Every structure is written in C-alpha cells, then in structure tokens.
C-alpha cells in the first residue's frame, strides 16, 4: 500500500494486508502520536489495511502555538519582564 507521511511529507510502500497497529509498529511510530486515515475515514487500531489502499499517517503533535513555558501563564511576570 501507498503510505503518506508528513513533516517532512513523503511516501513509502508497505505490503498489506496489515492492521493499523502493526503498520505503526512496523514504521516505529508511536500510536499515541499519529492517526491513520484512509480517504477521509479514520481507522481504529485493529482496522485492517489492504495492499491496494492509500493511507495517510497524520502526526497529531503540534508545538506551533508559541507556548513553551506556557505563554498564558506569563502575564507580566515582574522578574522576567524587568530583565528585558
């Protein structure tokens, strides 16, 4: 099957049939960090994927919210602000 991976975007071929959990394990991907999608359908861990399927493995981890340290928790902290 054709498997689309992201960050960076790339495609790999994986022989099927195979379950979602096995596919993730084979690609050494943590199931907590990814969704497996066929078309626009979400496939659960024991769902089977066929050899002719086109699959997207979508990462769910994001860090682009500007929140290291938690931006919202830093409202005008005197000790930090005064040093700038």
């Amino acid at each position, binding site marked *: 099957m054709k498997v689309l991976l*992201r*960050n*960076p975007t790339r495609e790999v071929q994986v022989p099927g049939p195979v379950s979602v959990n096995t596919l993730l394990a084979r690609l050494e991907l*943590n*199931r*907590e*960090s*990814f*969704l497996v*999608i066929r078309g*626009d*359908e*979400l*496939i*659960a*861990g*024991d*769902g089977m994927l066929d050899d002719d399927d086109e699959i997207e493995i*979508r*990462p*769910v*981890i*994001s*860090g*682009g*919210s*500007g*929140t*290291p*340290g*938690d*931006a*919202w*928790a*830093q*409202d*005008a*902290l*005197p*000790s*930090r*602000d*005064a040093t*700038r």
Partner: protein
Amino acid sequence: MKCRVCRGPAIIDIRRHNANFCTEHFLRLCRDQVAKAIKEHSMLAEGERVLVAVSGGKDSLALWDLLLELGYQADGLYLGLGIGEYSDESGDYARAFAESRGATLLEIDLREDYGYDIPTGARAARRAPCSACGLSKRHLFDEAALDGGYDAVATGHNLDDEAAVLFGNVLHWHTEYLARQLPVLDARPGFPRKIKPLVRLGEREMAAYCLVRGIPYQVEECPMAAGNRHIAYKEALNEIESRSPGAKHDFYHGFLSRASETFRQGIDEEQGALGTCGRCGSPTPAELCAFCRLVEQAGGSQPVELSARRRATGSSDPAPAGGS
C-alpha cells in the same frame, strides 16, 4: 473494535479511557469533556461572550466548533504572524471555518498593523521566534478581548500541551510558572479571564475530532517551532503514555488537584508590583511593556526570509521552557 457505548463499529481507541468509540459517541465524548471542564473550573457562565484564539490548527478550530456546539457566544480572533506560506494557509483555514459556521472572525495582521512579522521581530528584538510569537499573541488577544468587551479569552491548549508545559516547568523547577499553570486565570486589571476548555482532551482526540467533523486545518508544523523543546517533551510523554495509558492525565490533573496550590502562595504580592505601560496602558513593571518594546525594536523592519535550516529541519531550540 466496538464502541463502548453502542457496540457499533469503533473509529478510535482511547487507551486512557480503556475504551473505543464510534463517530457519534466520540463526538459526544468530546462535547461532554469540554462541558465538564467548563463547569468544573467555572470557566464560563451562561450568556457570557468568549473570544477564541484561532490559529487555523486543529486545537483552536476544534475548540471553536465545540463552544459553538455547546451554545456559547464564541467569536474568533486570528493573528497573522507573517510566517510565509504557513501563515497564509493557516489564515485560510480559520476563514473557511468561520464562513462555514457563519461565525465572526476578527483579524489582526502583525505586518500590516504593527510593522513586523515573527521572523523579523524575533531577529530585530533578538528574541527566539516562539518567544516573540507568544508575547505578541498574549498581548494582542488580551487587548482585543478587553476592547471588544468579551468575558474571556479561550485558547486551544489541550491535555498534551498542558502536560508538556508542566513537564518542562517541573524539570527546570520554574516555580513562578507552576503557580500560574491553571485551566482558568481570573480577570484582573488589564487582563481578561483566560480559559482552556480542552484540558480534558488529548491532542490525538482533537485531530480526530476535526477529521470526523470535516474541519480542514493546518496539518503542517510551524517552521519556526519544529523540533523545539516543547515538542520533545510531548514525544517523551507519549512514550510514557504508550506504556502507561492515563499517565498524562494523572500527571496534569493530579498536579491541579494535589500540588498546584502550593506554588500559588505569594502570587498576589508579585502581581501588586505592576505599573502601567506608558504607551499602551497595559500592566507592566517597566516604563514600556514587553510588547511595546518589541514593536519599537521590530516595527518597520524589512521582512526576512525563513532560513533554509529552519524550513528543512527546524532543528534549533527556539525558547527556554520559561519562554518570554
């Protein structure tokens, strides 16, 4: 796998609940968890207006959708950060969602309205990009909420975000941040109430929610944030979660119920030391607040290209756990 509720075909397994859910009951779970968080932490009262900080990513769009579904008066605010195509696409997702729901989306563009963008501002002010971004968001969302008469600002911080921030703050013992790491920060002079209604839902659930609800969102990672320490903490916590389902929930919610209070002692005295920014009137201990200093340093700077290294790998670490 079968749905725990109806025994129909499941679309998602959530190991910390030791349960699988079909589409209908997964969506109900998400709504119930947000309603529970709002009630448990007194985030919003009936009839209050809330401004959702919208990035075009899965969390903020899911949050906006959930609040609308639950019947809240929720408008969105999108901040154009000027991070190349990433920002252009993110704005498109935010606008498309607003249009599809007939919801109100406010917009601020850093380049047009303040004369800088995040890559420029970070370089000119010699700040890490995530630091300049967080500072800009914090200030402008606060200001827009106060000016617009909103009762609260809602952000899409989910359980994974909060657990990762907590992990970093504990790892480095940033006790001043631990004192403020709460799902609700009450309004005080110069600051609106801030709420995080997604603290009972994980990042994977939010991505699944958008997929199931047919909400297109920005899947690509922010090129300025890729590879940062926050993401590394999330990956580490997911390793633990995969061996011990429920660990992230227990870590964060256990902190709230059993440890948070300890760090809050003395916080009121610290807040009492704030004066007023001579330019914008925001609370600050200095003559100018950090945002006005950023605008002063970065405003009018020419846009800078994102470096090839950041575009390709984003391998640098943009900010300490303490951020701005």
